[in-house]
């Protein structure tokens, strides 16, 4: 093959690759509509699966696309303040500083925080004070509180987690000396917490009710004799509960408002219930 032929071949191959690449980039959009709106969402890993469900169902009859990332409730609030998200998901109420920055909350569901333990813990019920002491490092063996002997492996969520915020607030209320040791194992999301507690039979942790369906060997325990069920959250008996909110800069408007209205409508609320949360508006039957 002489040089010219090689050159032509190289150009042809490059051209084919470029055309193929452009084809790949241009096509294959499952429901993509150039005239549709894109909303970006970030925040709580508790709300994330629910947002996924919302996305699949909402997009069926609108042309709104959602771009979702996690990061935790703190990340959700910051993303809206920083302008990198249209709205944020939080599994707690807005803090003072966030309200001062202009955020407004829309409550979409209520959720409980379940305390989960590993397969070998051997307890099914603990008081709030016992739990607080475990997380403060004062109780270190399951045998001390009526379980099977074994060192308790404590797991907490990261600093910006809404789930942690709820847990810490209730614990602090129940036990004044509640103080988490600096070397406690920290995980970064609901899913990571499930992995951590499932992976270690003597572990303890806390997750949203919505994630209870993912447990296989780990179990949730009742707190002060109250079981972790949605009915107990509705009645107010189960203390570890919080609001799931969507935060916007100022009041929601336009496509965001439409989306929020749909979420608070019967269909949206039904999806929340299906995910293990508690509805705040009437649910479709």
């Amino acid at each position, binding site marked *: 093959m002489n040089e010219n032929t090689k050159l032509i071949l190289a150009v042809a191959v490059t051209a084919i690759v470029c055309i193929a690449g452009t084809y790949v*980039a241009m096509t*294959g959009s*499952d429901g993509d509509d150039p005239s549709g709106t894109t909303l970006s969402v970030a925040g709580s890993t508790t709300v994330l699966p629910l947002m996924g469900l919302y996305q699949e169902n909402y997009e069926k009859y609108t042309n709104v696309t959602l771009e*979702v990332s996690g990061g935790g409730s703190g990340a959700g609030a910051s993303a809206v303040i920083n302008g990198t998200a249209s709205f944020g998901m939080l599994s707690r109420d807005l803090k003072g500083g966030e309200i001062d920055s202009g955020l407004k909350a829309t409550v979409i569901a209520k959720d409980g925080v379940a305390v989960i333990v590993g397969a070998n813990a051997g307890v099914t019920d603990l008081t709030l004070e016992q739990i607080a002491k475990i997380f403060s490092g004062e109780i270190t063996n399951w045998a001390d509180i009526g379980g099977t002997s074994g060192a308790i492996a404590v797991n907490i969520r990261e*600093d910006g987690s809404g789930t942690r915020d709820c847990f810490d607030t209730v614990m602090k209320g129940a036990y004044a000396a509640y103080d988490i040791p600096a070397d406690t194992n920290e995980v970064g999301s609901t899913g*990571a917490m499930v992995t951590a507690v499932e992976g*270690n039979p003597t572990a303890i942790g806390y997750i949203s009710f919505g994630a209870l369906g993912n447990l296989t060997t780990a179990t949730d325990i009742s707190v002060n004799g109250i079981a972790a069920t949605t009915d107990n959250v509705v009645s107010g008996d189960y203390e570890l509960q919080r609001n799931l909110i969507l935060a916007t800069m100022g009041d929601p408007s336009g496509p965001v408002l439409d989306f929020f209205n749909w979420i608070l409508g019967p269909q949206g609320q039904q999806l929340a219930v299906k995910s293990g949360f508690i509805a705040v508006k009437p649910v479709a039957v």
Partner: protein
Amino acid sequence: MEAESIRTESRFHSDTVTKYLLMGIAAVAVSIVFFIILFILGNSIGAMTDTGIRDLLTGSRWLPSKDLYGMLPIITGTLLVTAGAILFAVPIGVAAAIFISEVAPPRFRSVLKSISEVFAGIPSVIYGFFGLTVLVPLLRDTFPNHLLMGNSWLAGSILLGIMALPTIISVSEDALGAVPRSYREASMAMGATKWETTIKVVTPAAISGISAAVILGMGRAIGETMAVMMVCGNSAIIPDPIFDVFSRIRPITATIALEMPYVVVGSTHYSALFFLALILMIMVLAISIASKSIVNRTRKKFGEAENRPSLVDLMIAKLPIRLVNGSKSAFAVAGLFLISYLIAIAFLNPFWAAVIGISVTVAVIASSLLWLNSLKKKGISVRPRSPSEFIDCIPIKTKDIFRRILTYLLMIAFVYMGTSLFYDGTVAVMAGLAVAAVYAALMLTFRGIDSRIIQKIAHTVLLVVMAFAIFLLVYILADIFIEGLPLISWDFLTGYPKDAGRAGGIYPAIVGTLKLIVGSMAIALPLGIVTGIFLAEYAKDTPFTRTVRNSIDILNGTPSIVFGLFGMSAFVVYFGFGYSLIAGCITLGLMVLPVIIRTTEEALKAVPKELREGSMAMGATKWETTVKVVLPAAIGSVITGVILSIGRVAGETAPIMFTAVIVYQRAISHSILDPVMALPYQLFYLATEGMGSSAMQSAVATVLLIIVLSMFVLASVVRHYFDKRIKW
């Protein structure tokens, strides 16, 4: 006639224009470094004024929600995890390098080198995934009483050690290969065996290069983010005792990556993270300067000096010699105090540790002065002016004794530290003494054994170490492929994700990765190749050129997380692109720019000057020569560099984490201002979430690995093809 001469003149005028144009483009590299430093410095000022530098650096509690920004545990975390990584990687790496360079049959040398290059090309998120799914459970099962969760300093160091191995192996191997053959031949001529030559002649001769390798490996470990974040436990504490490898730990890189998602732009927390990045940059810079001056010293020793003094040498040459010697002595005294203080603080509280530190330093200085005095009485007059001169004065026998005492002390110390994690203090001390005794006994017995048998033993040990390194690599790859391949189907590759990204297909992630590759190459290639051309063909040794080269070296050593931080503050926030493809592409492009520049420059330099001279002799201008003669001749290596950069871009997570990615997208958007899904971040998200089956995680990892590894294979094929075509 006239028309011809005018035409010739204007062509050569355009050559000058071209030169300045190229200088302008090369200056872009300098300005990028300038901007990175500007953004990082600028954004960290908030923390420095709010909390004060002293509190930031020495505070011992990092709790942003309570406005506590003590960075001491985090900085210590980086130092400790790097130290552990080096302890793990240096013996294995240097042994493997010695094996490849001295013991292995020449046929296998290139195969083994390629294997270690593959190690280097595996993305760090894959190492992190391996660490999370295999290493951490393994450690937890091996040490159930100490590792409740498996995440620990030990896990982080082992993983970082594996990642630093390729750097250490390749640079050490180069250093060993650079030792002249005459050294080996002279030694063998005197009757030494190959092993004795290797260990007593070649390795000491290459020690500078090996130290450079270790230092470069340290640089790699310090800047590593994803892998270490996934396995370290991420508690911002200082282990107690300080050598407790089972403790959780948090280095600087993990802190930045974990907390950046939820900081508010402009807050003190935001600024504190930038301050951490600043410290990281300073560490990396120090390492880069150190390694360059060592490498230069090696080159001078073996006669390959390039007449390019390093920054440090230049600075030192300008100072009066008294000042230099004085400061060297001051450093030596300070270093002595610091080392004894750090060793003491592992066992005692700070006050007593300081007392010990001061006593040791004073004792050493006093005894040296007394000894110098006694020499004077014997009539030997020596006036050492600096620590190195002082060391030269000590007779060899004494130095040997000191060396032996030091070896035994270190041995006892390490055994003590390791054993005391499991048993109490006295048992640990006994263990330390016992190991030292065993070592001494072994040394005595070995003296009597035939040197050929020692050689066989040594070579076998090296072979085992090499095999272990290869086994690690194969295991990591196999583990991922075996679990992931079954899940890979046409639907998986072309389908869309379901269930918030935890099931379904990964088509948007593949497309996103492809887009990032194309975009970053579009930015890095023109800039990089042109700057490479400038450096190879047009640059003279002026301050401007040296600035350009130094800037490129700085860019090359900058950790990927710092690029991510810069990309976020510059493109996402300051320029207002938001989380977008364009922000990610620019960030990634800047990250691989130094690689492209360097490969282009080396490729062009490898073209013999006869080609250029022939072309100029026929009347071509410099630019015409470069573009039509030199560049085509060098195109093979340039393409190889490009392909390797593509592999790097495909696998990097940290630069895109804060600039371009999301985890769930039901349709591919066409705007460059929209974020994308990408394979490495998808893997990270799935693995740390723990949701989506582990098979799905392995499948994503497999796809990523296939893309990256095929880039490698492609690069080797291209290199091979063009090597064959070389006609000189």
